[in-house]
């Protein structure tokens, strides 16, 4: 469904963030993107929906090539891809409901959105999603009154109400405590399964990634170093991705699911 070919990004400073990356994501697959800070995880995700303009290469989503789209075509393509952000990126001075409904912006005209006159179907869907993540009673609260975990749930609703085919998830748990991190990861993967969504989850917490996804892609210095199921992540593989370190403790975490303490092996990414 999503197919990335020879995607390259060189920043103005000369840093090559992505070096001809090839990646295929079939429909309904949840994939974790791991790698050290500066490996290009965030850039890769942002090049797909062109929040960052790629330098060269192709991104195909269901038969359309995204990197050559004009402004209008890009907007239509972005509706197909929901994005969830590291620091939640809710518009803090709007209410929860407005934040969720803002996911429909690509479908409604400017004046309708300006006067908050969304179609009833959108409003019902927003209520259903808020109910699904357990925040229905918060609908008219302002986003900056919410806790971190609650904000991220609103961010998930905003991405899902777009009715996307693909979720782009950028460090969803980087600002959350370990327990909330797991809840959020579980929620994202559950929702993807329910709706048959594909997702690329960019995450620095290897143990958390192994816990929830079917496929792991390791990125190092802008190239893919590993692509496979989570149980094939051996200490050797982690060493090629992250460099020399004692990895046994990290991998063992997969088995001790009760532990709430996640080791902070890598500093938060970009």
């Amino acid at each position, binding site marked *: 469904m999503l197919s990335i070919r020879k995607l390259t990004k060189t920043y103005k400073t000369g840093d090559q963030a992505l070096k001809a990356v090839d990646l295929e994501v079939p429909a309904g697959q949840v994939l974790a993107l791991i790698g050290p800070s500066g490996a290009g995880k965030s850039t890769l995700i942002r090049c797909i929906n062109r929040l960052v303009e790629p330098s060269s290469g192709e991104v195909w989503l269901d038969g359309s090539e995204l990197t050559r789209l004009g402004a209008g075509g890009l907007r239509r393509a972005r509706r197909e891809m929901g994005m969830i952000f590291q620091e939640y990126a809710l518009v803090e001075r709007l209410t929860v409901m407005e934040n969720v409904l803002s996911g429909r912006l690509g479908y409604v005209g400017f004046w309708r959105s300006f006067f908050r006159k969304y179609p009833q179907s959108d409003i019902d869907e927003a209520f259903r999603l808020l109910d699904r993540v357990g925040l229905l009673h918060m609908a008219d609260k302002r986003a900056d009154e919410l806790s971190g975990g609650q904000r991220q749930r609103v*961010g998930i609703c905003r991405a899902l109400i777009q009715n996307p085919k693909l979720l782009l998830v950028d460090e969803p748990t980087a600002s959350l405590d370990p327990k909330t991190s797991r809840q959020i990861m579980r929620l994202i993967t559950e929702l993807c399964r329910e709706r048959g969504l594909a997702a690329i989850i960019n995450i620095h917490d290897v143990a958390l990634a192994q816990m929830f996804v079917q496929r792991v892609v390791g990125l190092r210095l802008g190239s893919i170093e590993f692509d496979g199921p989570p149980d094939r992540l051996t200490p050797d593989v982690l060493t090629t991705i992250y460099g020399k370190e004692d990895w046994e403790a990290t991998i063992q975490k997969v088995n001790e699911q009760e532990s709430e303490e996640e080791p902070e092996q890598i500093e938060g990414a970009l």
Partner: protein
Amino acid sequence: MPISDNGQTKTWQRRTTGESLTRWFVWLICVAVFLYCWQQISEATTWFFVWDAPRIAGDIWDRATPPRLEYLTQLGRPIWDTLNIATFGTLIALVLAVPTAFLAARNTTPSVLFIRPLALLIIVSTRSINSLIWALLLIAIIGPGVFAGVIAIAIRSIGFCAKLLYEAIEEIDRSQVEAIASTGASRWQVMAYGIAPQIMPAFAGIAVFRWDINIRESTVLGLVGAGGIGLQLQASLNVLAWPQVSLILLVILVAVVVSEWISAKIRGAII
């Protein structure tokens, strides 16, 4: 840390001899400039009047007290006009300042090379020139009256509001804008959902703050004929009706204090 060594004792000094000399030289120039300025002022002054000043001040005080309170009945309309000049001037300025600010802010301007300098030029030139000068100019162009006052206040306020506003726009959180853009929102929807809510508090604060300043400024616009209570002040000064002058000054003082109080209240309610 410079340490000078004169014979056997070592002395710590904050600066080396060279640095000290330069500093003394700079100070010397400053003092010389000040003395020159003072001499210029002194030359242009008739010192006889200055020595006589306490007597004249006392004389004016005697004539100006008590203020002629019955004149207050004639000040209703001028006060109303003053208020309107400030309010409409602020409203017009805000309408014009918002697009100017968006064109001037580095992160929203369509072109950093061409449009941004133009917007900055508008901001600098409207801001550098006092509203009284704008009023003078407008009176020469469209004739005296309240309308000239409104436009003068509006022009003067554009630069002020736009400058504060574009600084607020440059400080917004980019990720919220990205999040709205990634939903497939159009350029205007990104403005309405991603940017506008973030600068709203700053905008409201600037509006009220400028309204407060504009009340002050519009009280004196009448001195050059642009309507408001300043007209009465000028007329009273022309006929040396000091009891009326003192009353008008009292009214202006009250207006300034009240508007400052109101603006502080509104700002407190918003933030």
